[in-house]
């Protein structure tokens, strides 16, 4: 087996727990899409085209509310604005990749792939291994999401009504957040971001999240620099 394939599989293995976690998340979305007035194939296609759970769930509920298209597109992109932050975090690693990798791999850039990759790139410096690892991790999570979507859309009725899997979404964020917090500044950033998100609850969906993240990063950096 070539080293590329070995590294691809290593990335995939690292993402298996989150890929499995993506299943119930995709299921929650699939059930919501099936119950909405969106056609079945469009609900499924969105998971391939957008590949971002929170934005897709919000779009489905906006479609059902009959929201105007600028509101739908604007809200979804606002929720996904955090990907620009992940893009910033990974940019210096990705700049070592050939263009065909640099412009295709970001399609697989999810919260899950970013959280795993940012930590992994601390210990992996080789550019070739870095991209194969990202491909393995990103695809593994995406496959969990796609499978969950299909199950939710086509087999959602089989879930007993009293079983609530909605907590899968916050549980996944907890599972991703805890291992990424490995220093005091990171803990401070997480706490500030959480508080600002709640304070900004009244802002349009997604805006509170991105504002809180940017504010937390700015505050922690300023305090850090101030301390010298």
């Amino acid at each position: 087996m070539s080293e590329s394939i070995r590294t691809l599989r290593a990335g995939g293995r690292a993402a298996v727990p989150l890929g499995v976690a993506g299943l119930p998340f995709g299921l929650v979305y699939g059930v919501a899409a099936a119950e909405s007035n969106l056609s079945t194939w469009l609900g499924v296609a969105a998971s391939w085209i957008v590949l971002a759970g929170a934005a897709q769930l919000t779009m489905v509920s906006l479609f059902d509310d009959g929201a105007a298209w600028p509101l739908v597109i604007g809200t979804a992109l606002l929720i996904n604005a955090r990907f620009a932050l992940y893009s910033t975090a990974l940019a210096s690693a990705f700049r070592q990749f050939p263009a065909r990798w640099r412009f295709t791999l970001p399609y697989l850039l999810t919260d899950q792939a970013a959280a795993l990759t940012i930590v992994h790139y601390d210990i992996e410096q080789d550019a070739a291994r870095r991209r194969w690892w990202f491909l393995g991790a990103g695809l593994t999570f995406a496959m969990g999401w796609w499978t969950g979507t299909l199950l939710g859309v086509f087999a959602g009725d089989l879930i007993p009504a009293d079983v609530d899997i909605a907590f899968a979404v916050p549980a996944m964020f907890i599972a991703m957040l805890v291992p990424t917090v490995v220093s005091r500044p990171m803990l401070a950033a997480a706490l500030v971001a959480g508080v600002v998100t709640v304070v900004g609850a009244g802002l349009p969906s997604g805006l509170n999240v991105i504002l809180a993240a940017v504010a937390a990063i700015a505050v922690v950096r300023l305090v850090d620099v101030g301390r010298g």
Partner: protein
Amino acid sequence: MSAALQILAVGLGTYLLRVSAIAIVARSPETSDATQSTMRLIAPAVLAALLADQLFVRRGSVTLHWPWLIAAVVAGVVAYRWRSPGVTMLVGIAAAWLLDSAM
């Protein structure tokens, strides 16, 4: 605009957000230590914001749903102690389900 076109537009916009800094930084010099320190805060800040939004915000107002908050603490302890996303998810969902039926 049809739903299909709106989904395509969001897909394209999301791809552009994902590729944004990666495309721009591709031709710039090595990043400084200060930039690196800032980059390292991105994942914890964004993930904590997403989590707080899930736990405390419902339709634009602050809502405390106690079974979920307790389940979140349980999941947090499990995540810290065992460092396994799979175990964290399973215990968290089970705790939320049990607490929701009990409370």
